[in-house]
């Protein structure tokens, strides 16, 4: 038996090998029919079997071969029968042959459909296995939790264990609401659709000493399984919250600096505007003194009075100066900063401007050689002012665009440009735009550009405006480069 069990697979393998060749079925047909003829010869000792031994031969051919090979096997079997079997009449021979054809063809059809089914099943199970693998991979890389109807954890992925800070063994069977505050499965039931839930809502998970902000997406299984009812997909919001917080912090800080700067600018412009007439008055008085002194004794007294008036004018100047010093920005201390890093901080703020004004802010700074002497927050204030101005200038455009460019223009200077594709600044306004309290906008104080200019000047630069290649205005200024450090 052992030899037989080893022979059969070997035979089968060789048969398969034959089959794989073209016309393999025909070889099988010839072989099977030959074996059947031999077998029938052997059975002749016992009785007459006619077609019966041929049936397995045809079935064997059908099992491995196609329709042509099977038809060929049937024809061979009939051909082998006709001369060997003595017949009473030709009619009986014909009926026998026809019956044989019908019966064997029926069996062959059954064989083929069986083979087709087997093939399809194999294909299906392969595909299923592939999907299973995919699912496993996805689950392994995501924090997913499966709950039953009562909200108890039935299954959770390793990633979910890490995120929730809980061991798999401890978690299974626990109510999810005991791990995540305020969690209620019913919240997700409002929509019957697969992915319901409030997208903006965040949950808090107590983990160790701290908490983790989470976002949860829930899907419900359509079937009525007792143990798996809802599939929760978790996401850690810690990083997102931190980024939001940083953007908000910077915004608050910029607002505070803006208020201080505006106040300082008001004081400065007031001082500047008042100092002009004061200086002129003092000078005029001095001139009048010269004339008055020519009048002799009388004039001398008048000259002394004029002197007093002059002193008062200068005192007014002193008062203004003191007030300005009080309100002016705290002593500016320029540090060494990288332009790209200072602008990178502002991406959150620019994002707000982009969303509010439907504009696109493009940043194209040369990150090499961008170490400059600057005061971080003041520089950022200036940049935000320029970008905000540009955003207002392009607000009525469908393809609103603001571009921030920067590069080293010489060994000493790094230039920053803010351009827009708005309508630009009319030539007659170019003279006055920097003046404090001058504004073309309805809701502004007219301090934006003058504050910006003050900041730029305190950095040893000049704020320039010209026409931009984009079509609108281009504001530019340069900062002093810090090279010693660059080389180090």
């Amino acid at each position, binding site marked *: 038996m052992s030899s037989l069990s080893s022979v059969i697979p070997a035979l089968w393998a060789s048969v398969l090998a034959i089959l794989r060749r073209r016309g393999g079925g025909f070889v099988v047909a010839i072989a099977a029919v030959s074996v059947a003829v031999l077998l029938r010869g052997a059975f002749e000792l016992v009785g007459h079997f006619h077609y019966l031994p041929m049936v397995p031969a045809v079935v064997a051919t059908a099992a491995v071969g196609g329709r042509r090979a099977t038809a060929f096997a049937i024809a061979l079997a009939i051909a082998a029968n006709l001369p060997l079997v003595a017949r009473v009449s030709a009619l009986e021979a014909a009926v026998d042959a026809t019956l044989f054809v019908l019966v064997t063809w029926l069996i062959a059809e059954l064989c083929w459909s069986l083979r087709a089914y087997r093939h399809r099943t194999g294909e299906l199970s392969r595909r299923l296995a592939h999907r299973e693998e995919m699912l496993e991979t996805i689950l392994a890389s995501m924090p997913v939790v499966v709950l039953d109807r009562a909200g108890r954890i039935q299954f959770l992925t390793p990633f979910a264990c890490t995120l929730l800070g809980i061991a798999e063994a401890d978690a299974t069977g626990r109510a999810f609401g005991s791990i995540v505050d305020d969690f209620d499965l019913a919240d997700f039931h409002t929509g019957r659709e697969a992915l319901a839930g409030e997208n903006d809502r965040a949950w808090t998970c107590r983990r160790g000493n701290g908490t983790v902000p989470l976002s949860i997406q829930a899907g419900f299984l359509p079937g009525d399984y007792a143990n798996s009812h809802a599939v929760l997909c978790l996401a850690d919001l810690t990083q997102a919250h931190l980024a939001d917080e940083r953007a908000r912090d910077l915004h608050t800080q910029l607002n505070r600096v803006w208020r201080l700067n505006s106040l300082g600018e008001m004081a400065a412009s007031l001082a500047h*505007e008042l100092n002009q007439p004061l200086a002129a008055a003092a000078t005029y008085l001095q001139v009048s003194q010269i004339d008055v002194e020519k009048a002799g004794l009388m004039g001398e007294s008048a000259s002394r009075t004029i002197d007093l008036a002059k002193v008062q004018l200068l005192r007014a100047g002193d008062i203004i100066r003191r007030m300005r010093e009080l309100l002016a920005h705290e002593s500016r201390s320029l540090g060494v900063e990288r332009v790209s890093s200072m602008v990178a901080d502002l991406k959150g703020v620019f994002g707000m401007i982009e969303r509010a004004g439907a504009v696109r802010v493009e940043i194209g700074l040369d990150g090499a050689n961008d170490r400059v002497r600057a005061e971080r927050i003041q520089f950022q204030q200036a940049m935000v002012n320029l970008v905000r101005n540009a955003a207002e200038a392009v607000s009525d455009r469908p393809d609103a665009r603001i571009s921030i460019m920067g590069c080293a223009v010489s060994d000493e200077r790094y230039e920053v440009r803010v351009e827009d594709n708005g309508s630009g600044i009319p030539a007659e306004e170019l003279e006055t735009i920097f003046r404090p309290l001058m504004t073309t906008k309805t809701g502004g104080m007219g301090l934006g550009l003058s504050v910006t200019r003050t900041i730029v000047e305190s950095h040893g630069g000049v704020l320039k405006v010209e026409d931009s290649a984009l079509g609108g205005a281009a504001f530019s200024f340069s900062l002093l480069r810090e090279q010693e450090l660059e080389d180090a």
Partner: protein
Amino acid sequence: MSDHSVFVIDDDEAIRDSVLCLLRAHGVRARAFASGVHFFDNLPDVPSACVITDVRMPGMDGAEVVRRLKALKGDAWPIVVITGHAEVPLAVQLMKAGVVDYIEKPFEPNRLLEVVRGSFAHLDDLLLHRAEVEVAARRLARLTPREREVFQALVQGRTNKHIANDMQISPRTVEIFRAKVMEKMEADTLSALIRAGLKVAPGYAADAFART
């Protein structure tokens, strides 16, 4: 006061007018310009002048005026900056750029006058020095190459004996050269000769003669 002019650049009409009044009352020739652009477009053709400029002006600011004027005229046109908006970094930058003084508005008019007088005195010195240099250069041009060699050595403080040795001539010949040099340079003493030499070629570089 001396015969120099003062040019006032300020966008404020009252400042321009009052400063002109003040300067003219003190006998100074003065002219005013409403902007840097206007000033450079109508640059007065005088060899020396004092310029008083504001800082914050539309078009061209004071720093730009200083930069362009320095490039154009150098030290011959001293610049005084008056500003209603004093900023320390700006003041430092302007002082570095070579302005004579930086005055905040409102200013004591006498202070402005003093600064103008001071820059005039500086101009006088400068012009005097230039005239002397010119004279010395003219005299120097009269020397023969050989005499120049002797002159150079004398100014460097070398003795007759050394010079004779260096030039491979007799001390007697050096004496003769020396007398000629003194005569042509119109110097009665050796120290007067050295002074002339320093004026005409300060530092005594090899190409000093060619430069003057």
